[in-house]
């Protein structure tokens, strides 16, 4: 049974390594927030209309907006 538990843990670790941004039990507030923010920014960059929406609001070019989100 000990091996089973070990197995599950290692599977989880494997999953976490594979899928960036997967949470785990010991996640602290900072890590969690960083993950959420990165997910959001990646989504903004991926959806061009959303990027355009922000660009209009902030009066920047879409290219600049994309760069800012990337940073």
């Amino acid at each position, binding site marked *: 049974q000990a091996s089973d538990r070990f197995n599950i843990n290692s599977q989880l670790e494997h999953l976490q*390594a594979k*899928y*960036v*941004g997967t949470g785990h039990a010991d996640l602290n507030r*900072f*890590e969690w927030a*960083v993950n959420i923010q*990165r*997910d959001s*920014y*990646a*989504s903004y*960059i*991926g*959806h*061009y*209309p*959303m990027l*355009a*929406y922000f*660009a*209009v*609001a*902030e*009066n*920047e*070019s*879409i*290219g*600049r907006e994309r*760069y800012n989100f*990337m940073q």
Partner: protein
Amino acid sequence: MYLYNLTLQQATGIVSAINGNFSGGKIQEIVVARGKILSLLRPDDLGKLQTLHSVEIFGCIRSLAQFRLTGAQKDYIVVGSDSGRIVILEYNKEKNVFDKVHQETFGKSGCRRIVPGQYLAIDPKGRAVMIGACEKQKLVYVLNRDTAARLTISSPLEAHKSHTIVYSICGVDCGFDNPIFAAIELDYSEADQDSTGVAAGEAQKHLTFYELDLGLNHVSRKWSEQVDNGANMLVTVPGGGDGPSGVLVCAENFVIYKNQGHPDVRAVIPRRADLPEERGVLIVSAATHKQKSMFFFLLQTEYGDIFKVTLEHGNEGVSELKIKYFDTIPVTSSMCVLKTGFLFAASEFGNHALYQFQAIGDDPDVESSSSTLMETEEGFQPVFFQPRGLKNLVRIDQAESLMPIMDMKIANLFEEETPQIFSLCGRGPRSSLRILRPGLAISEMAVSQLPGVPSAVWTVKKNVNDAFDAYIVVSFANATLVLSIGETVEEVSDSGFLDTTPSLAVSLIGDDSLMQVHPNGIRHIREDGRINEWRTPGKRTIVKVGSNGLQVVIALSGGELIYFEVDMTGQLMEVEKHEMSGDVACLDIAPVPEGRQRSRFLAVGSYDNTIRILSLDPDDCMQVLSVQSVSSPPESLLFLEVKASVGGEDGADHPANLFLNAGLQNGVLFRTVVDMVTGQLSDSRSRFLGLRAPKLFSVKVRGRPAMLCLSSRPWLGYIHQGHFLLTPLSYETLEFAASFSSDQCAEGVVAVAGDALRVFTIERLGETFNETAIPLRYTPRRKECFEAAGMGENGNGNMNQMENGGDDEDKEDPLSDEQYGYPKAESNKWVSCIRVLDPRTASTTCLLELQDNEAAFSVCTVNFHDKEYGTLLAVGTAKGLQFWPKRSLTAGFIHIYRFLEDGRSLELLHKTQVEGVPLALCQFQGRLLAGIGSVLRLYDLGKRRLLRKCENKLFPNTIISIQTYRDRIYVGDIQESFHFCKYRRDENQLYIFADDVVPRWLTASYHIDFDTMAGADKFGNVYFVRLPQDVSDEIEEDPTGGKIKWEQGRLNGAPNKVEEIVQFHVGDVVTSLQKASLIPGGGECVLYGTVMGSLGALLPFTSRDDVDFFSHLEMHMRQEHPPLCGRDHMAYRSAYFPVKDVIDGDLCEQFPTLPLDLQRKIADELDRTPGEILKKLEEARNKII
């Protein structure tokens, strides 16, 4: 409630554009991605951009790339989308579709951090493609071909590196060595461990080269070096025999040439002289031009300036990098340099343009070079320049783009038959108010007054082989006027036409003779001037004529038909007579099929509400082949040959269908298919066109037969991209029309209306709307954020429109132009104005500038109780608003203006200071409701300021919309969806009685009915919420109005929750919603406008049968016709929330593009024929527009 979603106008903004030879051969074409639409454009010989094909892919296209296998003649398209799949497409010229060559799954769907699709890079020799995500994952696919020269794709090779963010990737041109890809990467693993942010500040970007070893089939990190931390984009430098290889790294303020084992060559990007120092210059798009002997790059900055970059290179590598100012055009998302000397600029916002190169920037101009780079204490010495007019480029065409639609109002301000859509589009100096009308735009070429009121007009050629028409013949009540077409159009008398009698028909007959039919006979004018007259027997007159060039049928009063044919010698011979039972209402002969002597069909419409098809064949001449009864006496008949729906580029290789069109006296156009052999009629469709009986005329559109229907407005039925479309023309009512062709105007229409003769051409075929743009330049500064528009209607019923808004960041501006944009100043500077526009004359009648860094955010008209001033205008403004680092402002105000001169100008009554930004204003029971931050407040009008009456501070974030109905107030919160409120007058209290359970970032909202609201959120969803009926009743009946319950609350909010009844992912940020009816007498639907510039409609179904039919059709379409780029349709429409009760008409409308056997298969499963399905689809569309 079930809704049918249909896109009326496809998105016009462009995400990405690539150029190449997609149809093979030498033709330069452009493929553009418009969010969820992929289209193929081609500049024609005149330099006009033509859309060849456009397809909705039900996914989100993020990147595009083209590649060509060595030695091939044709480019393939690689699409990176949100489907978690790589898709390779090929354009099929014969069928005019994109064919999916390969589709390989590599990850989850959706725009995620680590799922590739964001970036695409191609090996310049077309041997491999790299597809990358924002973070970590990069996959390389090897492209090859098999023995049959088909494209093959390998399984993916991983080039992942965890804890890195990727900024850009590109292929490196290294000839036929192993393919190399370059990427700008940032390692954040240390920053993650360190919450203080020190490590994050120290993070360094690297340029990494990945080598694909074709022999080992393996990708390795070959080389990595630090680059400037502002690096954001990579551009491939030609290599192999053509250049030095390597990459250009575009960074903030710099362009750096880098290659493995080569020292950096760096040059600064010249700056505009008026640019504030703290602003960098970023390259946002790039294009490469490569010829045998030379190559250069065009890089565009975020301010719109294009620079030409050249490299001096020799055997020992690159010695100098030169950046020269080239020209300034609006900021683009992609540029394409075509080999034919054109530059296609896909603008980020506003119209796209096609430019022609006049020069390639060889003249001296401001230039910065790596050799003159100077380093001072503060960094590198900048180079300055002043933007100037276009010198190297000249614009030859532009494609209209509505992107972004900021606001939209549908109203019938012009009192036309259908309402107009007033949309506020664009940004900054390029913004405009566009008036959209359903229909095609026409351009009027000439209008001339005639001596009387003409009844009809025809055009004739002198010979079948002539390209242009020779005469225009106009018939009056008692005369005929003949005009000859030459350099000018003038009256002639030597044409042989009888001018003392009205004409019934004039046409070319046989090869080279003319025929005039007048009430008393037929006049046949031979080429050599001989004239044959055929006179009617007795006192009978000719009432109707039908002819097709070789055959003529006349109907005499009393109902006798006489049939003539042109014989071998060109003589018009009487062949047959036939007595009809009653008077003939109209008749038409089908066009002569190619290679035949005669057409077989004659259609005769009678006053007994029937249409008969008669045979004209010698063996069964004048036999009735079929009879069709119609709802009203036919007024006009027309046979139209239509090529079947799917076809090649021009649909030419498919058998033609013969349609019989009939305009009925009740204003309905009746269309039915005629069997080419038996003459049987089937598959009839009817459509109401207008109040008058449609008269039908045959015209030519793009060389193919089309139909002009003149009812109370003109309509054009024509074939566009393989579909038959019937669209209204935006023109006045016409009486009679004929096609017109001269050397000034190849495909025009000549028409009579009133006592004028009009010549016009039809433009921009295939578009649903035509637009009139009124440029908005409130101020010689730029507006930044948004505009809001209100329609003001004052007491006299005189219409006018208000538009307000605009905010901004800067001050004085010497060189303000649409082309250049305004100079950037430090942020947090605003300019704004309030403008009153008269849409009829497109003129500004009043323009009020807001002073002192104040910006307008909301506007509404309000009638206060005391009616002292009549209608007033309330404008919410904010002074010194900052978004960053923290949202703050100096003060908010509500201005109250009074209308003067029938609403043409404004006068400030007073202004009231408030504590936040008033983002929403609304009239409510003779008072003004304002949403100020999280406070909803009711104001009354005072002498010197507004007086607070009542408020509610319990809203979660920021109120952005308020709508009212009776005593209910529907408040939209920026982040928390809708809140339903009630105002109790006796207790003077505002309280929230219901709210939504889903956090929604509202971008648009519209009140549907007492219990229902429609909203759209930032992520591209449209949804309807409804208060359950029992809750609604309870609240209306409760004497306390649910107040006791309200005090209890539930789930941290109001006691009642609304239910979501409709949910749909549009895939584009919806910025405006409105309920309207676009056709006269039609049902209402909800129209939406999006950031990408598309317009769509949600039509409620009225019967359960339709719902069943369309949901089954949608289901079959999903199964049989999965979207092109590999995204699952159902998953796409449910991207954020599961789709509910909306049927996607865009998918259903792809039914006609399916192969015929598939169409038949789906139709069988639905127990219908394909024709019936097409008819259903057409009906659904006709209910909307």
